[in-house]
Structure formats: C-alpha cells, structure tokens
C-alpha cells in the first residue's frame, strides 16, 4: 500500500498491510501536525501534491527499502488537503523478522519521502502563511 488520501488517516489498515506470521516486529511511524514551528503558532497545514507521481515515488521508496532490507514489508499512506493541529499527515509501517531491520528501514523510508515524493506543505499561522522551503530534488 503506497497512496495518498484526503481522508483522516487510520494507522490500522497500514499496519495490517505489513503484518504477517514471519514478522516478529512492526515499526509504525506517525507524522503529526505540530502546533508550532520556529516559534510561530500553527493554525493548520495545507498539503498539496502531484498525486499520481507521489504515489509512484512512494512505491519507489518501497522498492529501495526491499532492496536494502529484503526481509521487510512496507506500507505508507500520506494525507493531503487541510490538516488540523494534532492530525496525522503520514503513516509508515515496516515489518521485519527482527526489530533492528524494522526500525532502520522505517527511518530510511520516511527520510526518503522528504527527498523524492512530490508533496508540499503550507503553514497557516495566526498572522500569515507560507509554503515551506523544502528539500530540492536532485534532477
């Protein structure tokens, strides 16, 4: 499962997608909308995406994870649209026979999302708003 949705995220189905009898460990990461950034109070976030390509690039991240940690399974779901403080923006789940690989692979996947998956975030504060300067993609 590698997809984007406008609906609130439920970690359950993402976890179930990677859980299997050979997996002794499942690591789940939730990215949550925080109430402040660089000292400014955040009212809400707006995520824009190139949806079809973002889903393709998320699948590529999944392939990279499997190439590095062949015994893992991975699933990721990212939300777009308006998200309130405290809501979940990203769910990533990785299963592995043992916890070490699951933690490492999950960390790798969420770092890679920030490098290649075309999703953008606007912060809306009490007194303004801005699209955040992110990570330039290496062409």
């Amino acid at each position, binding site marked *: 499962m590698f997809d984007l949705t406008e609906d609130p995220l439920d970690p359950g189905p993402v976890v179930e997608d990677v859980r299997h009898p050979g997996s002794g460990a499942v690591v789940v990461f939730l990215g949550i909308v925080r109430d402040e950034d660089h000292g400014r109070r955040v009212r809400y976030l707006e*995520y824009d995406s190139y949806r079809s390509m*973002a889903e393709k690039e998320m699948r590529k991240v999944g392939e990279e994870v499997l190439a590095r940690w062949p015994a893992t399974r991975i699933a990721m779901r990212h939300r777009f649209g308006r998200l309130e403080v405290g809501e979940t923006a990203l769910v990533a789940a990785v299963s592995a026979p043992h916890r070490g690989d699951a933690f490492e692979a999950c960390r790798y996947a969420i770092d890679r999302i920030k490098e290649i998956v075309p999703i953008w975030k606007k912060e809306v504060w009490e007194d303004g708003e801005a699209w955040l300067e*992110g990570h330039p993609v290496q*062409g």
Partner: protein
Amino acid sequence: MHVRVRLFAGLKELAGGPEVVVDLQEGATVLDLEEQLSREYPRLRPLLASLAFAVDEEYKTRDYALHNNDEIALIPPISGGCDV
C-alpha cells in the same frame, strides 16, 4: 509544439492556476522550457533555479528533449513527510 506544464504549491498561487500551456520549438529541452517560462511568467523567475522537472511523472534533467503534448511538472523543493 506545445507542452502542458503543471504547477503546484506556491507556483500554482503565483501563476494563478494549476496548469499552463507553453509553445516551444521542435526539439526543445527542459532548459528551453525553463527559459521560456522565465520570459512568459516573470513572477515565477525567482523560483525557477530551485525547481526539479518531471516529464510524464519521471524526474528529468535539464538536457532532456521534450515532445509534443508532454506533461511537465514543476517540482519545487518538497516538504512532505515530517520534520520531527
């Protein structure tokens, strides 16, 4: 030939819409498109240098040769996932 250019995030707001169509000479590259955009949409100019380009949903370098009806996406520095 012409190509469809899709815009996201701050670029979409600056250009006033999610898509523009750009006319280019046959054999034009991504770099030629970038220069054409800079002429036609001066407001996008400060952001062009930090962009990546995707053609039909694959990242391409600026020497990539475009084709009629290609869908090109301007990809500003991305900020998905999580900062924590």
